[in-house]
């Protein structure tokens, strides 16, 4: 098994400095490694990557609940004030003419954040179990997660624009709801969770331990 395995920086006891690119050998001594040229910390793998990802993913899940339950926008008109949560907005948009918009909002605001969390949980679980199946697909999933992250703020953007633009007091004005803060929190924390995940772990074999313990 080990013979068929391709060599990695880690298996050779090497690490690249993420700041200056210097390739260094990692000493066997237990402690924090620093780049001798720029002083940046060196990691063969990001430290506590799985733990941090899990923590942030769970945070995102927790924030996801109030983000969906609290109203994201309150529209004040002479007819009264209407507060809408994300799902209420989707339901309201669901009409014969604007159903595509409803789908866009539903996908961008409900499906994607939840899908990201599920995908991240899948990656973390498979890495923890040391699965080696379909590594290529999992890496592609990871890339999709990283790419999609910055686009899931759609709802937040819409909210901020609408709140900023529709201020025709006293005729009509829009106020942000607490839900949008939580929603932004979900997006940011999910991005951080994806960032803490070290994709190199996908390729690590279960019997390979940290350097120096081979």
């Amino acid at each position, binding site marked *: 098994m080990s013979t068929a395995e391709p060599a990695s920086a880690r298996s*050779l*006891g*090497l*690490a690249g400095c993420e700041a200056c690119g*210097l*390739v*260094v*050998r*990692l*000493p*066997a*001594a*237990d*402690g*924090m*490694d*620093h*780049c*001798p*040229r720029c002083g940046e910390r*060196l990691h063969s793998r990001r430290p*506590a990557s799985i*733990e*941090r990802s899990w*923590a*942030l993913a*769970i*945070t995102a899940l*927790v*924030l996801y*609940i*109030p983000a969906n*339950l*609290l109203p994201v926008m309150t529209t004040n008109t*002479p*007819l*009264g004030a209407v507060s809408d949560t994300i799902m209420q907005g989707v339901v309201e948009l669901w009409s014969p003419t604007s159903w595509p918009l409803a789908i866009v909002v539903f996908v961008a605001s409900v499906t994607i954040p939840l899908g990201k969390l599920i995908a991240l949980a899948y990656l973390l679980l498979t890495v923890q179990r040391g699965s080696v199946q379909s590594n290529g697909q999992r890496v592609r999933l990871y890339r999709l997660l990283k790419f999609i992250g910055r686009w899931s703020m759609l709802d937040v953007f819409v909210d901020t624009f609408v709140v900023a633009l529709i201020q025709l007091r006293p005729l009509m004005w829009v106020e942000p709801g*607490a839900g949008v803060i*939580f929603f932004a*929190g979900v997006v940011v*924390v999910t991005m951080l969770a994806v960032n*803490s995940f070290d994709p190199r772990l996908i390729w690590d074999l279960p019997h390979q331990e940290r350097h*120096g313990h081979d």
Partner: protein
Amino acid sequence: MTEREAEPQAPELPLAEVTARKRSRLSAVWIIPIIAAVLGGWIAVQKLLAEGPTIEISFASADGLEAGKTTVKYNGVDVGRIESLRVAPDRQRILASVQMAPAARDWLVDGTAFWVVSARIAAGGVSGLGTLLSGSYIGMQIGTGSERVRSFTALAVPPVVAANAPGRYFRLTAANLGSLDFGTPIYFRRLQVGQVASYRLDDDGRGLTIRVFVNAPYDRYVKNETRFWQASGLDVSLNADGLDVRTESLTSILIGGLAFDTPADNADAEPAAADTTFELFDDQVSAMKAPERGSIRYVLHFDDSVRGLAVGAPMTFLGMPVGEVVSVRLDADRRKKDVSVRARVLVAAYPQRFLDVLADPQVLTGGSKAITPAMRHALLDGLVARGLRAQLQPGSLLTGQLYVALTYVPQAPKATIDWHSDPPVFPSVKGSFTDIEARLTSILAKVEALPFEAIGRDLQQSLATLAKTLQDVDALVKRWDGELTPELASTVAETRRTLAAAERTFAGAGKAVAPDSPLLAELQATVVEVRRAAQSIRVLADYLERHPEALLRGKSEETQE
């Protein structure tokens, strides 16, 4: 390590510097989800705490109501929202489930009222125009009860008076509603001071009870003696002062109104308690008449015809109205063996007036103003013993209208007021007018029945007898003239002489006696007596001179004094 150094690819690679590692078993990153969970939990708790009670309101119709949109407003502030609408199991009403604000928790007590506010155009004004744009909402009025209630029945019409409005409610009893409605204004000196809050037909259907609300600073002008009257319309009267037009306000002409005032002599009285009941009069004049307080009902039985005696006809005492007829009907007299039918007249007497007329109540009751029933009974019993009776008398001979008069009938058979029956029975006598009629009729009947022919014959015989008698009398008188008159004349002369002697004697005695002595006084009295005696004798003499037959027959009846 040795294995790595042996690697040929990186012989010149620098070695990473190593510093001591501060390692902890649990990464600090777990603080983040904990913070998020705490934050989320806190918001959830806040939201749960902000959740008010859910109540159920029953509406007659869900017209204008919308689940999720229609709000409940208390004085214009949103305090709840309809969550769902459904038809009640009995299919008669609509049940609305309403999510209330937590602040409303203490307001959901018995007495709290809900009603639908929508645009309402009435003669009294236009209200709820704002709902034309915003849609109907549910108005709320907080009750004063203490028991928490979770289901309510919406009012059909919005309450006219806000629950916390300062002021007082009063009750008016009226025979009919007239032009009154919810919100009909109430005027005091032509200033609008209140409104009609509600009205209700009495259970017996004989009248209405109207609840009115008088606003705070003005409610103290409602005294126990205050009169309320219908102020709707115009009151035009032509009197000695000219044409008099009276009205409260233009609004009251159009939609009606009520007014109240207190008679001047009671103006300083204490304000009436809330929910005091007043009578609603038809107009100001009847309202401001002297109070007919404490009317007492009596029953009068009449054997004569009561045709012309209308309900409302007055009962008078010495011409002063002291009551009025309440009802007239037939009644069987069960005390007699053969049941006889008579008229039963129910009268309402105002004893206050009656007693005011009769005597000063202050004197009667020894200073206190209240007259107890016992005092009244005693007084009336006394009057009846002196012959006071009820009698039907004609008010107008032309129209045949009758009224009840209380008059003294001295020769009336003895009677008393029957205090035991309810109402008491006041003794009555046959009416004077009807009596005269009856008497005339009976006289005519007797006259018709007279045997005029027989009388004529008798009369002739009598005349013949009379002529003979007169001749006898003539002879008798002639004899008297010859025999009796000289003797009588000498008697008179003698008497005169005696009197003259007596006068002389007395005159002498008068000189002898002092002017203030008892003897003199007695003497003077005696002289007066004697003079009277002499006078009598003179009168007798004169009489005998003119009627000598008196010596035989005695004084004749015609000249008896």
